[in-house]
């Protein structure tokens, strides 16, 4: 819920002043598979808290990024697909997580004027 609120805050602040009456169609997010965010729960929360905001009705497009690790001992790199955090090559537990913890808002997509607008403005 807190995450959905933050997305709304950042996205709202990113709408150019001259497009405040337009509809935000989509919010593009990048979310790592090792973040604590479950996409469906986030969508559910977002739909609730975005009501009565400029983001109402916007879709969340979520790109899930894989968990990529590097072994600090032998420099092997691989994608972690199961919750096993030891090196596949040398069995070391000293890993650096290169990606998979992302929780980023990449862009927003706003409807261009001249569509089926029925804005009262």
């Amino acid at each position, binding site marked *: *819920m*807190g*995450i959905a*609120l*933050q*997305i709304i*805050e*950042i*996205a709202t602040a*990113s*709408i*150019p002043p001259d*497009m405040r009456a337009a509809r935000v*169609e*989509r919010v*593009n*997010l990048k979310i790592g598979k*090792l*973040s*604590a*965010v*479950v996409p469906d729960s986030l969508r559910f929360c977002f*739909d609730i808290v975005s*009501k009565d905001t400029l983001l*109402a*009705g*916007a*879709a969340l497009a979520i790109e899930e990024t894989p968990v990529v690790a590097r072994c600090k001992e032998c420099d092997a790199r691989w994608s972690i697909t199961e*919750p*096993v*955090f*030891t090196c596949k090559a040398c069995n070391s*537990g*000293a890993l650096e*997580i290169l990606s998979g913890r992302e*929780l*980023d*808002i*990449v*862009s*927003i*997509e*706003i*409807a*261009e004027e001249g*569509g*089926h607008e029925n804005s009262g403005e």
Partner: protein
Amino acid sequence: MKTVESKRPTREIKVVRRVLAVNERMAEQNRRRFAEKGVFVINVMSSPGSGKTTTLQKTLERLMPGVKAAVIVGDVATTHDADRLAVTGAPVVQVNTDAFGGDCHLAAHVIEKAADDIDLDAIELLIVENVGNLVCPAEFDIGEDARVVVLSVTEGEDKPVKYPTMFRTCDAAILNKIDLLPHLDYDKDQAVAYIRQVNPAMPVFEISARTGAGMDAWIGWLKGKVSSKLKAQS
């Protein structure tokens, strides 16, 4: 409200920001504030019912008055946990997150506010008992020095692999209620193996908060952390 796949022309506006950037900045601010005061902060997380409050109550009883500690307790509602912890004599600040939208975690700004009610000059250790939840709290830095996850032998052995983010981001794990092992089919070795699989270097303290078994090792670890922070300050 239905979301319709629209083919209408849209203008894409680049944002490229971390969603939790505001929380992360606030957490860094908290961290600096606690460092200036030489206060070691632990963020204690668990699923509901793991015995977190009892563990902290027994921990405080053993630490105090040698180690001066205070507690911030997060719950969605009620002051039950705070009442139990206050018995130890430690200053306790209760945070009910329903004032913040019923959040399932404590965020950095909540800790900043709660810390105003604590005399930071008078303590060396601040224990934050987070809301019982193994998911969201993992994502919210509150400015802590260490994260501890509590799980108990009445839960599934596979909690660590079900919630790898939580177990990856923690610095120590407490496996509580080991006094119940004779009555359960719980495979403790498997549980510890799962923890090691997710976080190979993490110390695991097998304890019973009720009987006091295993508490010495945990208290020793915590005391070591508190005194190293004090040394870093002076």
